[in-house]
Each structure stands twice: as structure tokens, then as C-alpha cells.
């Protein structure tokens, strides 16, 4: 019997030993990547990240326009409280948990990673210049919004925490990358502004130089000394461009052509996201431009959200221009009246149904009259749904399947930058000529050249195109009191806080003051 027991014991002990495992973990429903080989990326993947930023109103406009003086998102009763994120953005009270800045951060940084995947693949060498350009663009965005840029010497080694480029280091990297891209990209061809091109690289370099004082200045500085050499560099880059302003057409037709269905044909577009229904390379999305502010009962229907502030709207009435006379603020065609009932641009006053005669009522049965006055929290029951001017920058058409390309850079922006550069000490520019060109195109007369006038002209020309925050910082007005913010903000708000999650990388320090 003992023998039997020993026998059993031996078997079981042997089994125990045999059953010993090395505990090597298996990926049963995937593959364990080796180097970059198991993550596929192509230029489209990089472009998708650009689109992820610009196609989302809460990012493209939410973090570039709403912190400035143009845009606010009022809370309307039970709608649009959204955990206070809109109010925080406008009044500079946001913290590291803000979802829009955190989301943008992830997009920029994912774009940088995907660009690296393309750049490391010799099989995709034809796309390297474009990938490098877009990587430089993400760097520009990171420098502008967050200051620092995390990086890895070996970008595939995810086992190590990323190191961090300071704002100045990141700036130098961005200039190097954009310069390199410029020499390898093709010249822009009209009608193909969706392809990264030399003009786009020139624009990026011009913007980097225009903002160098901001990007490499002392942290917390609120005024900046612009180096004449940077201004001259910006002028030179813009001088080299092959893009042209769409022809002079003083009723606004050529201005609005940039935002209409076939805007890909505009010579003014420098870089844009293609939007064409059914096309494989379509990545753009512009419909939020009319959805976000439009009332639920409007055509096309919308979300009844953000507004243009009255203070900003008043830029259109400067220099003796009567209200409604700047076609950039109000654009009306028979077709628009027939399909939407209203003019576009800045929508104000009574809103009509398609055809333009029947009034639209709000959900409380009141006439829908968009008013100029708007508080951050609308408490007047009658004004809950109607407070605030609404904005439509892209011309509504095929409401569910729009085709207008989403503009990132366009030539009017370049002209106004060149005017600004000349006024900030650059040589080779003609500020008066550039300013006049932009104004004459919409039938407005010449005004004196001054930084203030360029600033105001940028507000009128480039409204809700995502430039305002950057402009206001450069002009030193970003922190100032404004219509819905009574006090000067802390200088820390010149940069957004890094997302709280990013700080779980021990190499990353929160931006000063947050």
C-alpha cells in the first residue's frame, strides 16, 4: 500500500514539475509588434489627425476662437452647461481637466507619432516631405497651445517615458522640419490645395517667424519684442508664394467663394482638407460651422449653441462702414434664401424658414430673433434660445453631405501677415498695398496702415477661422477684459494647461501657474 501511495505521489509531483510554465505572455488576439512594423501608418493617417483637430468645432474653434473675444458658448437653461467647459474657456478659468485642450493635445501628439511612422518607412519616401510638413504643423500647434513638446529619441520605444523639448527647443525643431519640407515639397497647383505644398510650408514658416517672440520669449511675458529679421523672413516667405487672392469682386462673391461648395477651385486656398462626398481622399468636415449655432428649428437645423459676441461684431462697422455693408459679415443670395430662408455670415434678428417669408419660432413658441446681447448664462426665459448672434462661415449646401474643403491656410491671411510684418519692422513689405488688397476685394476703401488696423482687419477677414487667440496674444490683448470677462486674466492663460493625464509622465511639468 505504501508503494502505491509513493507511486501516486511521484506521479503528482512529476505532474507538478511538468506543469511548470515560464509564464510567457501571449497575445492571442493580436500580434506583439516588433519595432514600428506592426503599426501601419500612411500619409492619410497623419492627415486624419489634422482633420481630427480642424473638423471638430470644440477644438478648431473651441480652443482657438472661444478663448478670445469673438466667440462664446452661453448656457441656455438645461442646454449647454456641459460641465462649464464653454464658460471656462471663454473666461480663462479652465484647468488641466478641460476636455477640449486635452483632446487637442492627444491629436497633435498622435499626429507627430504617425508622421514618424511614415518618415521611418523608406517605402513611403515619396510622402516624406508631406509627413515632415505635417509634423512641423503639429509642432507649431503644440508650441502655440501648450509650449512644450514631448519627444522620444527612438520614437518606437514606448517603454520609456518621453523626454520634453522646451518651447524654444521645439521651435527650433519646427523651423528645421518646415524648412526641410519646403525644399522637398512640390509647388502648389490651384485646385489641389489639399496636397501639402511649398506655399503651405512657406505659410507655416511665416507663422513661426511672426510668432517667434511669443514662442521663445520668457514664460509669462505679456508683451513681446519682435525681431526685424523674423519679420523680414516672414515677408520673404510670403513673397515667394504662388497663391493669389481671388479676383476683386466687390460684392463679396469672391470672398464667399472660398467657403462655398467648389472652394477647392479657389486660387486663395493654400492648404485645406478635401471634402468631397464619396471620394476616398475626402477628410474634411465643415458642416459644424452651420450646425453649432443654428437653432433647432432652423434649416439646416443645428444645436443652438455658440455665438459671435457683439463687441467682435462691431469690428464690421468701423471706419464708417454701415452695418450690413461689409459683405464678409452678411452674405445673401436667392439660392440661400430659398434653401435656408436667411442670409449667412453673422445671423441676427428675425430668422425665417426656407423661402424667407415665414418666421421661425423657438421651442417655446416665440419668434426666433437672434439678439446681440448675450450673457454667459442666459437666465431670461424669453431669450434662452435666441440670445446671441449666430455664425455661418461655410455656405450651406447639401446639408447632410457638404463638399466645401475645410481651410487651414488661405492667402488673405498671408497678405495680412505680410502687412503686419512690415509694420513690425520687416523689410521688403508694403503694408498699405496688402491691407488695401484685402479690403478692395470686398468693395471697401483704403484705411491707414497701423498695427491696430491690421488687427481689426484680421478680425473682419478671418473671423471664425481659428486665428483669433494667436493674434490676440501677439497683439498683447489676449488677457484683457472683454465683453463677458470683466477682469484682466492671469498671464498663465497665455498657454493652456497640459492635460492632467500627461503629467503621469514624470518628465513633464505642468505649465507655470496651473
Amino acid at each position, binding site marked *: 500500500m*505504501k508503494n502505491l*501511495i509513493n507511486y*501516486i505521489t511521484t506521479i*503528482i*509531483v512529476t505532474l507538478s514539475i511538468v*506543469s*511548470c*510554465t515560464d*509564464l*510567457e*505572455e*501571449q*497575445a*492571442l*488576439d*493580436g*500580434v*506583439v*509588434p516588433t519595432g514600428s512594423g*506592426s*503599426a*501601419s501608418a500612411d500619409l492619410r*493617417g497623419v492627415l486624419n489627425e489634422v482633420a481630427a483637430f480642424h473638423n471638430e468645432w470644440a477644438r478648431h474653434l473651441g480652443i482657438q476662437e472661444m478663448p478670445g473675444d469673438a466667440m462664446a458658448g452661453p*448656457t441656455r*437653461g*438645461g*442646454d*449647454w*452647461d*456641459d*460641465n*462649464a*467647459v464653454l*464658460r471656462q474657456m471663454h*473666461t480663462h*478659468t479652465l484647468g488641466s*481637466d478641460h476636455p477640449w485642450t486635452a483632446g487637442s*493635445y492627444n491629436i497633435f*501628439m*498622435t499626429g507627430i*507619432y504617425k508622421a*514618424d511612422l511614415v518618415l521611418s518607412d523608406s517605402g513611403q519616401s515619396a510622402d516624406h516631405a508631406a509627413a515632415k510638413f505635417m509634423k512641423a504643423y503639429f509642432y507649431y500647434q503644440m508650441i502655440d497651445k501648450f509650449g512644450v513638446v*514631448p519627444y522620444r529619441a527612438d520614437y518606437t520605444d*514606448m*517603454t520609456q*517615458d*518621453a523626454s520634453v523639448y522646451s518651447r524654444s527647443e521645439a521651435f527650433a525643431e519646427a523651423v528645421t522640419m518646415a524648412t526641410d519640407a519646403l525644399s522637398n515639397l512640390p509647388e502648389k497647383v490651384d485646385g489641389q490645395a489639399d496636397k501639402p505644398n511649398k506655399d503651405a510650408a512657406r505659410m507655416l514658416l511665416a507663422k513661426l517667424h511672426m510668432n517667434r517672440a511669443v514662442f521663445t520669449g520668457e514664460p509669462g511675458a505679456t508683451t513681446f519684442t519682435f525681431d526685424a529679421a523674423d519679420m523680414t523672413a516672414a515677408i520673404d516667405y510670403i513673397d515667394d508664394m504662388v497663391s493669389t487672392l481671388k479676383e476683386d469682386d466687390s460684392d463679396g462673391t469672391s470672398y464667399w467663394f472660398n467657403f462655398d461648395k467648389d472652394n477647392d477651385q479657389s486660387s486663395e486656398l493654400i492648404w485645406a482638407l478635401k471634402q468631397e462626398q464619396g471620394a476616398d481622399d475626402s477628410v474634411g468636415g465643415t458642416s459644424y460651422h452651420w450646425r453649432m449655432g443654428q437653432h433647432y428649428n432652423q434649416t439646416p437645423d443645428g444645436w443652438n449653441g455658440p455665438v459671435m459676441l457683439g463687441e467682435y461684431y462691431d469690428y464690421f462697422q468701423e471706419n464708417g462702414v454701415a452695418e450690413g455693408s461689409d459683405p464678409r459679415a452678411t452674405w445673401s443670395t436667392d439660392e440661400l434664401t430659398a434653401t435656408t430662408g436667411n442670409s449667412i455670415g453673422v445671423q441676427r434678428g428675425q430668422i425665417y424658414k426656407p423661402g424667407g417669408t415665414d418666421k421661425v419660432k423657438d421651442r*417655446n*413658441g416665440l419668434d426666433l430673433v437672434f439678439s446681440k446681447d448675450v*450673457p*454667459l*448664462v442666459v*437666465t431670461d*426665459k424669453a431669450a434662452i434660445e435666441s440670445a446671441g448672434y449666430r455664425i455661418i462661415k461655410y455656405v450651406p449646401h447639401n446639408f447632410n453631405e457638404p463638399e466645401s474643403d475645410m481651410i487651414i491656410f488661405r492667402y488673405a491671411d498671408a497678405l495680412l501677415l505680410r502687412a503686419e510684418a512690415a509694420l513690425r519692422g520687416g523689410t521688403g513689405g508694403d503694408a498699405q498695398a496688402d491691407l488695401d488688397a484685402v479690403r478692395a476685394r470686398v468693395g471697401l476703401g483704403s484705411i491707414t496702415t497701423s498695427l491696430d488696423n491690421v488687427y481689426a482687419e484680421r478680425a473682419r477677414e478671418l473671423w471664425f477661422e481659428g486665428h483669433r487667440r494667436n493674434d490676440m496674444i501677439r497683439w498683447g490683448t489676449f488677457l484683457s477684459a472683454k465683453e*463677458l470677462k470683466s477682469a484682466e486674466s492671469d498671464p498663465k492663460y497665455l498657454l493652456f494647461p497640459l492635460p492632467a*493625464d*500627461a*503629467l*503621469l509622465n*514624470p518628465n513633464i511639468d505642468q505649465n507655470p501657474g496651473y
Partner: protein
Amino acid sequence: MKNQRTFFSFFLTLCIVGLSYAQSSAVSGTVSDADGPLPGATVVVKGTNTGVTTDFDGNFSIQAAGDDILVVSYVGFESQQVGVSNQTNISVVLSSSNELDEVIITGYGSVTKRDATGAIDAISAASFDQVSSDSPAQLLRGKVAGVQITSATGEPGAGVAIRVRGNSSIRSGNEPLIVVDGVPLAGGNTSPGLGDEILGTGSPKNPLNFINQNDIESISVLKDASSTAIYGSRGANGVIVITTKKGVSGASEPQLSYSGSLSSSAFAQNSSFQDVMSKSEFQSNIPSDLPADSPIPGESGSYNWQDTVLRNAFSQSHDITLTTGGENSSTRLSVGANLQEGIINKTGMDKYNVSLYNSYKLFDGDVNLQTRVLYSDIDDLSHLTTNSAGYIGNLIGAALYWRPSLNTTNTDGSYNVISANYLNPKQLLDSYDDSTNTKRLLANFNVSVNLSDKLTFRTIFGVDRSTSTREAQLLPSIDILDTAQSGDNRGQASVYNDQRFNKTFENTLNYVDSVNGVDIDLLAGFSYYSYLSEGSNLQAKGFNADQVDLINNLGGVVDVNTGYSISSYKNETELQSFFVRAGLTYDKFLATLTYRLDGSSKFGEDNRYGSFPAVGLGYKFIENQAGSINNLKLRGSWGITGNQEFAVNSAISKSRYSNGSVSIVTNANPDLEWETTTSLGVGVDFEILDGKATGSLDYFQRSTENLLFPVPEAATKPGPASPRFVNLDGELVNTGIEVGLNYSLMDSDNMTWDVSANASLISNEIRNFPGFIPTGELHGQGLSSAYSQVLSNNNPLYSYYMFDFRGYDANGASTYTQADGSVGPLATASKDVLDKQALPTMNLGLSTSVAMGDWSISTSLYGSFGHYVYNNTNNAYFFKGAYPVRNIPVESAVSAQASSDPNSPSTKYLEKGDFIRLSNLRVGYDLGDSLLDSIGVENTYIYVNGDNLATFTDYTGFDPEVNVDKAMNGVPSTGIDYLPYPRARTFTLGVNLTF
């Protein structure tokens, strides 16, 4: 591997040492009590230090001379002295006396409370409250100090959060290890949840539902490191040991018994519940400034949400048990059916169980084979009581907001359809079906071999196989905003499959001896576990408009190119462990030393193994004295335990294919290591007042470090949009005090009255922590991106983070605390981490039972205090501006709030969660054999039982005991109420028959 070899040398050495002790003149036997065999009873040869404890079946074998006297002490039971008188087989039956001597099954053994060095507790079948609980977890509710049981909602079979001495992890993975008959179960669910397909996501059911209450003999809770370190890497959250019933031992007549019950359940409103308005309330409060053309004031229909959606649910439960024993074998077979209707129409849980226990002795009892099989087949019917519904609501949301002046059906029988975002609750109820079938087999084969009278070898091989399929469909005939595949192609069907196959293989050697007055109990073992999980799901959208059977005709989608989405997964975890434990007793001094070396495939290749030591010490200051203090033992413990409940494939980098491309879904961390919890505890076990009262008092501190956390992508940038598991800096510290007391108020021949009470105080704090991690996501109108709780430095887990509501101003606008502390409007309100959190800081339980003649009455109460519940339902649905388009409670309709005031998340919706619940009252009568003797019934016991009879609270929602899953980025939340399945009050009439 080096460690492994060392262990095997030790293992084999033990074998040799053990064999050398083998000697002749063994006396064997069985110790039992009235209910069956007594594991862990002590048998000592009088006047010597030779002693053994009985095994799981009450068997013992001891060296003794023919004229020796055996002292069978099982203190708490009346001890007995038995002369050997040259017998070789002795059976001893002990009668029980008190709590200190109840045997508690622990990890790889058993112990009495009297001799325990760790903090352990147990409840046995006799003190189970419920008649037929959904899961064993509910049986522990309010019964054990330091254990908190929270059902997510009132849904039959809903997930249950079990917390032993608090939360030890900042991510998910706070559930204790569950060990069933020696087989440690895999963590995680065994049934699929519901993806966010229709009106929010749905939670999976409780994986413990598979055990039939009728099969449970006892449930032990191991709370401190001294008792859980034997489970090493999985012991940090405590261990719950479930032991199922056995057959009778020794030759006996087969015994057949039946227990059956019928129950009726209905919606249980707590004492402060604020219901939505009745039709008359609704119409009398309609504001005067409605647009002239508003149809609402003129509506003349009628509707009551409770009548439409809820029902009086009827349930029945039947169990048949056969036990039989032979000279060398013992068998128990039970079959159970528990058919439970939910109080929401079209919901419920039908559970069928079969369990088999068989033991067989060979070679004069030197080899003992035990087989246990638990099989269950559960059909769950669910509805859209989802946890993340938006403005449109889920079933509960639609039921509540539908105006009481609107009919749900038109006179022609068709549904009264208002709009795609104002859903007809009757139509929604009828249009959705959701059933889950889960089959689970837990079987183990257990061999113990007495290598000598002091050395026992035991091996256990267990398999745990579950298969679950969830099928849900929403008819194309209902129009819900944003759910159409395209145009008017509506209707959705989902099929989820989930399978688990887990294997357990464990070998232990147990050596028991007494040397120079020191009782020694040595255990060494090796374990191997494999946990395999796989599943798939298919979504089909956009069916033909008149199709009604979607699930069984998935091909009916209109556009086959876009109408389907599919996914599947598979993963496996392996663990391998070596462990030793030494229990030493010298006079009044007790010591337990434990060490476990655990390896898991989940960890980084550089940190596969972790070691988990623990020490427990005890000293009996007073032992078995008469008078006011009869027994007093001081014990202390220190130890390190681990936690490995997190996603598989977290340490390695993994890529997956999707739509023709491949991308990285997790980032590697070869250094990923165990999250370790260091526990320190001191406690006192006592018996006082001439044995009338027993109890324990404990203090503990648990500190968890190397916090395992999937850092979100922002922390790993630049990189793919995927997280990476790391060990974060910081500590999570839980500190608490627990008291448990049992008191025999009366103990006479014709009446006994026992009271037991427990209380625990607990606090926790996160320290030295770099993160600010949001959770407690809120949903509903105007609540995009809103969340309510954070995990942050120097704050308790799940601290609320929101505006501080300070009342309404003269215009009815909400005011809030501003950055400078003043009171001001919403626009400038300032948010802060509040000194309010979601975890109760005090839990109480009280049970009492009275037996008088043939009558018995028992009742239980429990309560939780010190925490806050966030009422997301109120926040999203019950603000004044929602009315009169939607129904709201009258309290909201007549409040000072202006109808234009936003429903910004704030302390307005944060309510104290304190409650006391009368959870159970049972009256039973023992008819003996008087009634049904003629048909062979030896004994008849009938009872009436009430569950969840009353809840005393200030909370205004359905129920303060609520924990709807509002996790954010995978970080769990606690204590948030959002459109949950309401809780039921249940009355049961039952009978137990013994043939």
C-alpha cells in the same frame, strides 16, 4: 526558475521527513457534530503533546496506546474525553457551545476563531437571511464587520461590489478573491454587458450568481494579510471562501429533503423617495407662461409609470436534495430551480442548478477522493436599464418623463408616438428584448493521501467552464433619435458570446506534529492556474421595417455593406505559485508564518514573480476562565499581499488589425510589477459574561503602493492612441476599526434569543499621488463632458468635484460658491474638490433571532453612513426647466428654481447616502412530523419571510444603496445613481420538508 527548484527541494524534503515519521498503532476516527463532520477539531492524547486536527471530513488519525485517553477538544463545543480501549476506529459527536469555537474554513485549512491569528469571520447556512439569494455575496450583507456589499441596482442578479476593508486600488480590481471549495475563481465577469448600441451601455450580471444558496454550507471572510497572504498576489482585497455542503459521513439511510418557496415582489419605495407627479399634480402646477399653442395643458390622457413599466413579480424556488452515506463514501446531490421575475416587465432570472458531492475512502481511509460538481444554467432577461443614457433616456428615464396626461396607446391600439427623443415608455418596453444564457460548470477532484499519521498530501484539480450568450434586439418600428443605420432603416440586433475556461491544479503537503510542547502545522504547496477568456460579438443594424424577429434573422439588414459590425477577442493568464505556511502553538502563544511566491504571465518579463510574506501572532491572556471575562486573545498581523486584477496583455505591446490596417492597442512595460498592499492589524477576540457574549475588536491599516494604472494616452505621447500600464507613485491608505459582537440574551430550554451586531469605521486617502483622475461620468441633457468624482492627492477615493450650490437667489437662479468663497452666480462659480466622498465611512449590521418552542423569528438590519450619493437622475431629468414637457417630482416643480436656471452639476444633486434598512424578517414554525407523516415526511418547517421591508433614509432617489457603473476611461466610480433598476420588496412563503 531558481526559486522554483528551491521550492521543490523543500517539497520533496518534506516528503522524506514525513515518511520517516510513519509509525504503527494508529487510531483513526471521525469527529462530528449534529450537522455532520467537523473539520479542524483537535484530538490530543491526554497528558502528552501529541495532537492532530481533523480533516475536511472530520477524520483524524493519531498515534495512541491502547490505554490512552483522547481529548477531543473543539472548544466552544463541549470537549469530550474518550478512552481508546484498544479500538482502532473511534467516532466522537460533539455538541456545540459558542462562537469562538466554530470552525472557519480558511485558505488551505481551517481554524477556530479561538486559535486564529488573523482577522477572519464566517457565517454558516443557519444565519443566512435570504430565502434564495441571487448570489452568495448578498448573504454576507450586514453580517460581517469590515465587509461591505453593495448591489449596483435592484435588478435580479445585478452586479455586486464586495469590499473587504475598503478599496485597495485606484482602478477597478477591488473585488476579493473568491475561493469555492478550494478552487480560486478567476476575477471578472462571466456574462457579457451591453455595448453602447441603443440607449447607453449595460452592465454584466454578477458572476457569482451561479452558486445556489441551498448548496452553501458556510462563507468565510479572510480580512487581513495573516490570513490572505497564502493567496499572495490575489489576497490584497481579502478572500472569501465558500464551502458547499457535503454528504453525511458514516453509513446512514439516504435522506431526501425538499425546500420550496413562493414569493411576491413589488417596488420598494424608501422613506424619502420623491416620485414624479401624478396627473392631478402635474396639471395643477403647469406654469402660466406656456406658449398659447402648447398642447400640454389640454391633454386628457392618463399614464402612471409604475403601472406601465413595473409589476408585482412572482417567483418560485424549489430545491431537492438527496444525501447518502456508506461505510467509505458519502454523497450529496441537489437539484434546484429558482425562477425569479423582476419587478420591471420582461425582466427576471431563471436559474437551474445541479450540484454533486461525493467522497470515497480507499485503503482504510488513507486515501480520500472527493468530487464536487456545481453546474448552473441561468437565463437572464433584461431591459434597457442602461447606465449611460442621454437626454432621450433609457426605459426608466422614458417611464419617468412621459407626461401623466398622455396616453401610451391610441384608441385603435397603436402607440401614441410623440417624437424620436420623447419616447413612449410602453412602446420602448414592448420593442426591446434582451436575454442572456449563462452556463457554468465548476468541478473539482480532490485527492488526499495520508502519507503517515502526520503527513498528508492533497491534490486538487478543478475546471471552471462558462459559456454565455447575450441576445438583444430593438424593433425597427420604434424611432429613437440617432439609432437608425441610415434613413429609415431602423432596428438593431446584438449577439454577444463570452466563454471562460479556467483550470486549477494545486498540490499541498501538510505536516502536523507536536514537538517539545510546540504544536506544529506545516503546509507547503504548489499551484498552477490558467484562465482563458474569449468571446465575440455581432451587431446588426438597419432592418426591414416590418421585421419583428431580428435575432433569429440577422440577414434581414437592408444594407449588408454597412449593417454589420463584428469583433472578437481571446486571452489567457497563467499563474504559478509556491507557498509555505507554518502554524505554531506553544501554550498560550500562537504564531502563523506565511510566504507565497507568485508568478503571473500578466506582469512584465522583468518582474514575473512577486513574494508575499505575512506574520500573525496571538497570545491568549485569558483562556477558559469562569466569570466576567472567559477568554481573551490579543492578535497582531503584518503582511504583504498583491493584486493582479487588471487587463490581460497589459505588460506587453500588442497590435490588432482593423479595417485593413494594424495599430498598437497597448504599450509594453517590461517592468510592470505587482501592486502591493502592506497590511498591519491588531485585534482582540473575547468571550465574556460567562460565555454569553463573544466578539472581536480590530484595528487595521492597509497601504497600497506601486499603484497599477493604465496611464491614458496623454502620458505616453508621442505615441499611438493607446494606454500603457504602469506602477504609479503614491499610496492608497485605508484605516479602520471593526467590532463584532454576539450576545446570547436568553438561553433556556424553551427559549433562546441571540443578537449579533457588527460595526466598522473606515477612512481612506490617496497620498503622494501625481495624478488628477476624473471618474463618475454624468449623462443627460446639458451634461456633455461632465463628471463628478476625482482621484487626487491627499483626498479620499471618489471625492466629489463640482460646484458648491448655495441656494436660489430672488430670481430663482442657482447661486454657488465663488473662488473667493463668496456666493455668486453660475457664470463665475468656482469648482473645488469637496470634503464629501462616495464611500461609506461607517457600516453597521444587526441580526437577532428568537426561538421559542416550535416558533422561530429572526430579523436583520444593516446600514451605511458618512457618504454621499450623486443623484444623476435628478440632475439630468428633474430640474424645473424640463417641466412641463417632461414630468418631474412635485418638489422640483414647485421649487424656487427659475425654469430658465441651468442644471449645472453641483452639490444641489449631492445627497447624503446614510440609510438603515430592515433587510429581513422571518417567522418560522416547525411542524415536526405531525402534519405529513402519513406521506413519509419526517419533518415539516414552514415560514414567512420578508426581504427589504423598510429603508430609512433622507435620500430622495429610488434607493440609497446604489452603485450604477459610471466609470470614466475605465476608472470606476462609486455611489452614483442614474436611472437604475428599482429595488424590490419581497414576501415569501416557504416550506422545508425532510423525508
